[in-house]
């Protein structure tokens, strides 16, 4: 059982009005798992932590989540290896801006054309982050030992000379086909990425069931592409509704952000943006919770109009 150190002391909020209050005083539970920027997260669990990022439905943001959480982990000081387990449709290298540096893949390693360390692409922005692609497009991988190959890879990464990485993130392909089965084989934990729409939720529920059948019990959820304005107008399910349907603890809530598309075009994950984007902050928080095996205790429900002071006119 992991003990969570509260950042702030539990405080009871009490009214001291000039006039007698009509409502009884409220005592809010401390939301200590909401925002963590005041200390380095403490790594929980056994290293390397093998995490598969899956969703079932395609296009919900698995690859984006893998890239941003991976680089967030690197920024937090942890070594991470991201494996693009999509055999036919490789995308993770594009999001990371490393597409011109991928010369060898796991297929070449299996064939003996290169060693594993030669197939790992080290990010020059953050040297403790590496990328490994399963195969190049238009190459066939025998399905018979796809899962075995990943197990060997993870084992080889554990026993490499510079030490095992802290995290191995596996970007799972969409669907529940052989690629999905291959990707989840070596995983101990799973991050389920979903969007607040019914089609994605149905697929996410199915995938969760399959993961649990395969023995993966530590499954957390990231709700992506959340629009608080639509939630407020009741045109979109709220994050709490999603959680009620799936029954999974929340790792993060990522708001809809146009910066995601720009970062994809640039090959520059948005967690590295300065100033940070809203979605980038959310990814950082999700990475923080992943490290500590924590989950969200509160969600951002709606956007309040900001109370503007006298000096707000000047941009304060």
């Amino acid at each position, binding site marked *: 059982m992991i003990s969570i150190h509260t950042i702030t002391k539990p405080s009871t*909020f009490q009214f001291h009005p000039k006039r007698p209050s009509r409502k009884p005083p409220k005592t*809010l539970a401390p*939301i200590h798992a*909401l*925002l963590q920027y*005041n*200390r*380095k997260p403490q790594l929980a669990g056994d290293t390397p932590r093998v995490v598969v990022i899956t969703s079932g439905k395609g296009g919900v943001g698995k690859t984006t989540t893998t890239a941003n959480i991976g680089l967030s982990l690197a*920024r*937090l000081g942890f070594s991470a290896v991201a494996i693009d387990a999509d*055999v*036919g449709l490789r995308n993770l290298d594009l999001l990371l801006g490393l597409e011109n540096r991928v010369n060898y893949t796991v297929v070449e390693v*299996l*064939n*003996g*054309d290169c*060693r594993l360390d*030669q197939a790992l692409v080290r990010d*020059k*922005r953050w040297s403790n982050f590496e990328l490994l692609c399963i*195969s190049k*497009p*238009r190459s*066939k991988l*025998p*399905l*018979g*030992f796809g899962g*075995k*190959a990943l197990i*060997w890879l993870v084992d*080889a990464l554990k026993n*490499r*000379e510079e030490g095992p990485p802290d995290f191995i993130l596996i970007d799972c392909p969409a669907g529940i086909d*052989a690629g999905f089965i291959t990707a989840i084989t070596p995983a101990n934990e799973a991050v389920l990425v979903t969007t607040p729409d019914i089609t994605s939720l149905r697929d996410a529920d*199915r995938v969760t*069931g399959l993961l*649990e*059948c*395969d023995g993966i019990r530590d499954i957390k959820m990231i709700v992506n592409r959340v629009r608080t304005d639509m939630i407020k107008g009741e045109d979109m399910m709220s994050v*709490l509704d999603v959680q009620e349907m799936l*029954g999974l*603890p929340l790792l993060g809530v990522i708001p809809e952000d146009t910066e995601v598309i720009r970062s994809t075009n640039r090959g*520059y994950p948005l967690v590295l943006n300065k100033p*940070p*984007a*809203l979605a980038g*902050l959310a990814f*950082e928080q999700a990475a923080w919770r992943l490290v500590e095996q924590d*989950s969200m*205790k*509160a*969600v*951002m429900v*709606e956007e*309040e*109009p*900001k109370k503007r002071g006298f000096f707000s006119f*000047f*941009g304060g």
Partner: protein
Amino acid sequence: MASIAAVPVRSPSFLPLCFLFLIWNFSHSLTKLRNFRNGLQFWPELGLDCTCKYSNGRVTYRKFVVKAMESDVDSGLRNDAVVIKSSEKDYAERQQKLHQNIVAKLHESVGSLPVFAFPIGKLSGMNFTIGLCIVATMLVVVVKGYAAKGSSDRRPGSVADLVRRGQLRSDRRGISTPLKYEDPFNNPMVKVSKSNSTVEMCGKVYRLAPVTLTDELQTVHQKRRSRAYQWKRPTVFLKEGDPIPSDVDPDTVRWIPANHPFATTASDIDEGLAQTNVYQKHGVPFRIQAEHEALQRKLEALQNDQKLGKLVIDPASARDFERPLKSHMKSENQVEHNISTPKSGSSASPSDHPSGNKPLPEELQNP
């Protein structure tokens, strides 16, 4: 009809400030007059009714009653004036003096209003100062915004491009900096309210709601999924149309279409060899080594074949290397002559070289 509106001085939000000051000074002047007359005053000329309450000799609450003038008010005023004139002359004179004093005092009070207390010259200077401050602040805001925008734009050909392309490490250049842990609560983009009920991120304020998922609910969902989804990991991959082996559980068979673009059931790779390749840490990879060795062997074989070929002389081609006898004998004599006189002669010159000597024609040899 005359309408009376009570204007409480105690609630200034209902009145403009300048009007408030005017009324306050009226009351002040009226208080002075009251003290002079030791009684409540009534100024029908002005149409004002002033009732003041005293508290320990100080006015704590004043209430003005503003009476709207009627069209026939002048007649009322005239009647009052007639009443005054009908009294003693001294009293009339005193009243006139009093009125004059009142008017003078009114002028004084108006002139002493703080709103109008600024001299005209100073007023324009103050306005100028205020305007200057506002303009300066706006300029600062604009310049700040422009600077922020300019820093976000990447100048082409700068060092930032090198970092962007991956030629330089950005973690040493401060472009991607690690998070600061020494400064708690120092992230300017994230602000949590003291009550933990709202959070401000990137300039937007969000209300927070606690998560309602409990462990019991989570268990309920897990049980629901275990009932709904029965799945076994496939361990056997077969092409469509292949027979299922007898000892294989049909639930663990995965069927692969024959024309699948990137999935194949053919296992051309030796698993043991593949595993060895994955675990290799040093040296040349297996295939490269194997190819290199094969090439090396081929080269050696070729070299060996060439060597054997050189030892065998073809007799048909040996005749091409034969020389005529005559020339051959003369050349031998010249070589012997050269050998007998090694030091007198210089080194054999190319003209003395037997092969280079052309035999003299017989006419020259025999004069």
